[in-house]
């Protein structure tokens, strides 16, 4: 097992693109005081703004060049032992008082239907700090024309590969959140989180046979909490040719056969497997039934903590908000808890949850894992994945392939589905290959595999270290009303024995 440890990076640089608001301590104090005056025993406030630049080039034209800007505040209170929350775009002084009053009146309504008082896990000490995503080149400072140029040129190369390519798209996204967190416990944190990235997608069509291929992964590419240098490192133009050609080759590939086999999964697919089968079920709010109406509950119930065999001894998974470049990397969560690394699965055993102060308190865990985030200042924080990483094993990717007598390799996610306790899953990949006597042989199309979470991870007999990297998933949905969060997954390639593949007939 290779543990990964990093020093958290704190860099006090705040970039100021269009419309930047004053992350005002005065406004925050006013909100908290108002809530306390109205009877709150706990109050925190988040004031923030988000810049979200999305560029899409398709068929030679900029199909989407848009900037989204949002700002506002959210006040969260405990009154008579129950939660209330109000969010608003209104940052004027009178507006803040009104928002605080709404939060309190909502909490009073909650308190009529409570079974016990909310108890938050204690914090070690109140903190005053700043954090900013380290970066070399601010993606919002790079001229728009330059970014669009890269996309136009990569898209041209993709499209050029064959007349069978009917649609080719290239993507760029830069995201920035400036935020302030304050609580009546004295915590004051300002943060600037920036991420960017991009990718390629092309669709090849012959008659009614349609295949797609993405680079570097699906969901419009890969993203990292980093500057423009990360987007540059993706080298979209250089990868466009191979991506286009593979989509066309897939049209001639054979159907993925059905059966039970050794299955090698690369990071581009494994990240989503980790997300769905380890990330979500280890969220303690789910395990405690708090998401029962929508996303569901979890097979990892508290009675199984420290007891259940989740996977083979090779399997070590952590929630790590400190991983450099991870899409879920930050300085503090939205309850002001410093970023940390916690084990979820250690040598195959289910060892820990991702938690909030409330859920950690409920379970008597003593302290929060620092997993609370909201997708906007107007929304309540929920237990969200940070970076859920599968720690590297001892293998090289090529060694895993060479060691496989017969099996299949699947690459890049195309479809996903898992039950509401996170047991039965089914995934589809964009592309697959049959492995025979240690080498990649024929290509297969529409590859799928299915299994049950603990059995599947228990069959994991090889994990690579040489191709371990961070993958960003910017579209994790949770909560009612729905929130979309950006989370990360570090992993390489892994092999699973006797896995059912080829679900399609």
């Amino acid at each position: 097992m290779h543990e990964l440890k990093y020093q958290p990076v704190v860099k006090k640089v705040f970039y100021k693109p269009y419309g930047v608001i004053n992350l005002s301590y005065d406004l925050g104090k006013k909100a908290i005081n108002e809530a306390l005056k109205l009877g709150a025993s706990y109050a925190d406030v988040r004031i923030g703004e988000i810049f979200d630049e999305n560029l899409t080039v398709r068929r030679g034209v900029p199909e989407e060049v848009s900037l989204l800007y949002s700002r506002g505040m959210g006040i969260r209170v405990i009154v008579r032992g129950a939660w209330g929350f109000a969010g608003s775009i209104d940052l004027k002084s009178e507006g803040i008082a009104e928002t605080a009053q709404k939060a309190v009146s909502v909490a009073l309504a909650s308190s009529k239907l409570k079974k016990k008082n909310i108890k938050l896990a204690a914090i070690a000490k109140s903190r005053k700090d700043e954090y900013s995503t380290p970066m070399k080149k601010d993606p919002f400072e790079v001229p728009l024309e330059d970014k669009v140029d890269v996309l136009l040129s990569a898209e041209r190369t993709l499209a050029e590969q064959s007349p069978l390519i009917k649609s080719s798209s290239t993507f760029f996204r830069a995201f920035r959140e400036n935020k302030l967190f304050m609580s009546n416990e004295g915590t004051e944190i300002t943060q600037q989180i920036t991420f960017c990235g991009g990718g390629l997608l092309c669709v090849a069509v012959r008659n009614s046979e349609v295949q797609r291929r993405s680079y570097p992964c699906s969901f419009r590419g890969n993203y990292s909490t980093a500057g423009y240098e990360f987007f540059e490192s993706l080298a979209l133009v250089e990868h466009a040719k191979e991506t286009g050609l593979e989509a066309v080759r897939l049209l001639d590939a054979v159907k993925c056969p059905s059966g039970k086999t050794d299955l090698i999964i690369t990071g581009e697919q494994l990240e989503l497997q980790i997300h769905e089968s380890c990330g979500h079920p280890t969220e303690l709010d789910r395990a405690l039934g708090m998401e029962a109406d929508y996303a569901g509950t979890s097979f990892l119930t508290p009675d199984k903590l420290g007891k259940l065999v989740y996977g083979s001894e090779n399997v070590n998974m952590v929630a790590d908000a400190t991983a450099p470049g991870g899409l879920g990397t930050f300085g503090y969560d939205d309850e002001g808890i410093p970023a940390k690394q916690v084990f979820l699965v250690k040598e195959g055993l289910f060892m820990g949850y991702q938690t909030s102060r409330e859920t950690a308190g409920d379970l008597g865990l003593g302290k929060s894992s620092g997993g609370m985030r909201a997708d906007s200042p107007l929304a309540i924080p929920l237990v969200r994945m940070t970076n859920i990483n599968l720690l590297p094993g001892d293998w090289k990717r090529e060694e895993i392939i060479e060691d496989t007598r017969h099996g299949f390799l699947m690459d890049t996610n195309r479809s996903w589905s898992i039950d509401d306790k996170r047991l039965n899953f089914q995934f589809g990949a964009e592309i697959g290959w049959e492995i025979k006597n240690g080498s990649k042989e024929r290509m297969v199309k529409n590859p799928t595999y299915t299994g049950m979470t603990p059995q599947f991870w228990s069959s994991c007999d090889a994990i690579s270290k040489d191709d371990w990297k961070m993958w960003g998933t910017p579209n994790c949905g949770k909560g009612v009303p729905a929130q979309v969060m950006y989370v990360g997954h570090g992993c390489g390639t892994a092999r699973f024995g006797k896995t059912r593949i080829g679900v399609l007939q």
Partner: protein
Amino acid sequence: MSVEELRGISQKALKSALKENVDQAQVAAFLFDSARTRFANSQIHQNVVSKKGGVAIKVAIGKRIGFMRADVLEAEQIENAVGQAIKIARVNPEDKYFKSFPEPERWQSLQDAFDDDTANCSPDYRAERVKEAIEVSHSESPLVKAVAGSILSSSYSLAVTNSLGMSAWTKMSLASMNVTVISEKTGSEGFGYAEQSSRHIKDIDPVKLAAQASEKSVKSINPAKISLGEYEVVLSPIAASSFFVFLSLIGFSAAPYQRGESFVKYHLNEQVFDEKLSVKDDAGDPRTVFKLAVDGEGVTKKRVPLIDKGVVSEESICHDTSTASREDRQSTGHALPHGLIRMTRPIPFPINVIVHHGTASVDEMIEETGHGIFVTRFHYTNPVVPTKAVLTGLTRDGTFLIKNGELTKPIKNMRYTDTMLSALKRISMMGKELEAIRLGTVTVPAMKLEKLRFTGATEY
């Protein structure tokens, strides 16, 4: 803030854009006031209100387009946003397909779209309804362990202006409640679910929802495992709604259609579904809950025949102005209303889907089933092969075996993986009653399918 004030905001922003020598400009201003009381473990655990609003600004300089959405409603901030949209347009390469922003049309505000009681609903009113749902659920059976769900009260207003003379506005109220009941007996859990949406908060009936969900929950304790394969299925309206949402996502939206990934493209004018299946998107139909007269670009929402007696065609595709211009067509009024519906990538999308009803009751469907499965709800549906309309998903919250015309026993949740081109090709019976599902964006009856292919099962 009233819809009149939003109109003022959009007109003012339009004026300031036009001062800057742009050829065309369009401004949509919106406000979404919502309150959601959420409960789990038979108590309120999340109780939130939010006031969200902003402007979406689009300008054209020749064929160069700039777009900015800013969730702000203060004058100075809106001015900034206008400036930013213009800055984007100045450096953006030409969109050769761009023709024009939409021309003004005659439009009519929709009757009965707004209910003050819903818009002004108090936190206490919502808490009372939650209390009823929890109490009724527990009173149904001592086996009921936990009640979860949420109740929503909200109002939405939108005003759109453009330099071609368009000035359209619309507002509606929206209420919704869903109840999940978990029961337990000697370590085995049972689940049940019910939901309701309406523009009128007073129509929401927690007692009925709780009774339905808890009955299912208790009945589904101790589920049996059955073998995989093809079964006849009776789908509740909630279960059936999943198919139509995903067919819209992968088929009826112009976005996948133009990428070449829509199954519709490969089956134009073919009888791909049962002839009993007719589905339209129609904001003007009195049965649809989402009563918005115009879309996010101010275009009047057109009636679109998504499936006409089992046949799909080019007329099935939902467009906004941008996708329409790529095919020399007109927008069908399917640009999403800003700030109301959360989609990771906004694409033209039907939100007033109505499936044509039949004549059968659910009881009759069950009576006519020899060996089949009753499905309450599907979970985590997703496309597997979109061009072949292959979907997968799991049953949830009450799945039962039907034998010789009767619900016999609960079964463990099953995963289906099947193409809708086969599953919806043979619909043996259509329900006579429509229900508004998913905040009322899909209005659909129960239905009985001759077969659905189940490829996996889970442990509960």
